């Protein structure tokens, strides 16, 4: 069922909080992967606040839906969501990156409740997600597996190994996303190593592909629900996004892949985010 206007406004409000948390945590922790955390936020918010079948009070529930953040450097954004969902006391996030803290910039599944797999080394997540999806089918379990990849990591050969495998096994319980912000650390994906035509590539590997605006909740929700209805193949949702979304000075800037914030920059970023949401939410 399409998201109602009220639901969309609720998700936007949540994304507002999450984006501000990302800025606050980054200010406290000294530095984080801001650009990609801001670009992935809307898909994560849609999943965690609407679509995932999860119970933060039971993080080890066997039949919960699984989410694998293959682009593990988005950990600061993911941690902001998990903390807000109540997997842990979000006040703990003030220790992000601190010595001895359970929260490093790439989340550790043995230390962070709600983190279904430790990721960070790029190109690994889709294979793990494929294992979870096959595992669900073998055990006749109802859960779905979701995996979010960065576009930069699509250069890794292991992604395409997993894509072949998931296509071969017709994993219709697997939905993957590409956070297509078009930037890697060193510059635009298309000038470093061409990824396009990206949808065609996954299609050729046996996937259903959907291409959407990764910041539009109606589109995100529509694609996720469409993927549920597709039988006999996995679905890849290519989400066109903006790296650094909602913080003007960071948007589309490769240099903001990773960075720290002083109090001036923090205030500027928070003001930018507030202004964005005040405009769209009225």
């Amino acid at each position, binding site marked *: 069922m399409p998201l109602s206007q009220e639901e969309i406004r609720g998700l936007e409000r949540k994304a507002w909080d999450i984006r501000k948390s990302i800025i606050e945590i980054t200010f406290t922790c000294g530095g984080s992967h801001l650009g990609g955390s801001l670009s992935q936020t809307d898909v994560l918010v849609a999943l965690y606040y609407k679509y995932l079948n999860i119970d933060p009070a039971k993080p080890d529930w*066997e039949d919960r839906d*699984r989410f694998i953040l293959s682009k593990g450097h988005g950990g600061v954004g993911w941690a902001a969501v998990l903390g807000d969902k109540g997997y842990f006391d979000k006040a703990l996030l003030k220790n992000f990156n601190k010595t001895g803290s359970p929260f490093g910039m790439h989340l*550790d*599944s*043995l230390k962070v409740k709600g983190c*279904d*797999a*430790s990721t*960070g*080394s790029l*190109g*690994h*997540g*889709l*294979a*793990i*997600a*494929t*294992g*979870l*999806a*096959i*595992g*669900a089918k*073998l*055990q006749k*379990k109802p859960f779905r*597996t979701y995996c979010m990849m960065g576009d930069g990591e699509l250069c890794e*050969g*292991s992604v395409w*190994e*997993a894509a*072949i*495998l998931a296509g071969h096994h017709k994993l219709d319980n697997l939905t993957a996303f590409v956070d297509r912000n078009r930037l890697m650390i060193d510059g635009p994906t298309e000038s470093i190593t061409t990824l396009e035509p990206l949808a065609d590539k996954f299609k050729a590997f046996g996937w259903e592909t959907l291409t959407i605006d990764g910041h539009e909740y109606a589109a995100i929700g529509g694609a996720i629900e469409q993927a549920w209805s597709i039988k006999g193949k996995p679905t890849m949702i290519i989400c066109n996004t903006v790296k650094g979304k909602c913080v003007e000075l960071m948007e589309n800037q490769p240099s903001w892949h990773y960075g720290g914030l002083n109090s001036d920059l923090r205030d500027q970023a928070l003001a930018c985010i507030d202004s964005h949401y005040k405009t769209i939410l009225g």
Partner: protein
Amino acid sequence: MAEGMSWSVTDGDKLTQAEIYGEVLSQLGDKYPDIVAITADLATSTKIGRFGKKYPERFINVGIAENSMFGLAAGLALAGLRPVVSTFAVFTALRSAEQVRTDICYQNLNVKIISTHAGISFGQAGSTHHCTEDLAVMRSFPNMTVIAPADGIETGNAVAAAMELPGPVYIRIGRGFEPPVYKDQNYGFAIGKAITMRDGKDITLIACGVGVLQAMRAAEVLDKQGLSVRVINMHTIKPIDRDIIVKAVQETRRIVTIEDHSIMGGLGTAVGEVIVESGKACGFKKLGVPDCFSIVGYPEDLYHHYKFDADGIVETVGELMRREIEEDEDWEDEA
């Protein structure tokens, strides 16, 4: 583990390590309904395919794609299953080292890896298919248990025991056409507990894998020369049995290690670390593949060439026996 209960093979002395592995894994399939066997186009070569024939619904062949295979195994383990993965050692330990480390060991997942064609046992294939680095790589991964069984019988025991040990386990076997060391499986195998194959007081041979057979052969020759040789089967490289090593240092004062692996980083290095940390004087020599890419040839010829067959061991023992070992003042200290 209830020994002798979990598995049995007839004509075990005629089967290779891999054949016994494939048979034992198939026999464990009923006891462990959560086993999922995985390979990368080496179902036949590694013998994991025997499990696949018996349980086709619990068998996944990913094609020639080892990196995603180990990620897949991690995902299956996260879904609550018990993946067993087989490919050649070189692909596990080198090509997919990062997936094994980061996806499996970092998350302490219950994945069992049985790698075949380890060392230079696939002699004619050359260095692209040899693996003289896997023990060094695997034992450096936290959470990983590393086992190099002496023969097929011990491989069966190791596979059965690994199923009862939560967390990642790496078992490496050779191509293995050598005769077995053990006649039956009931000799007290336990992960992390080395086996004294024969006692002796003049020198100790500590071996793993095919090295155990070579050490036993050498000990017979040396026995005829009047030397009392202790032979220890150090089937578990990690966690290593420190006590048995320190005892051998104290009681025989000379140790030779034998392994089908580089002399850098494997059994010899692991034993040497224990010796040095013991603070006791000990004559010590590592036998295995020196710091080179091996020549091509039949495995038995290569073992001879690199002097870790019985002849080479006898030669090295002779050299070590001629060396003066200075006694420590506190020689009788606790082990």
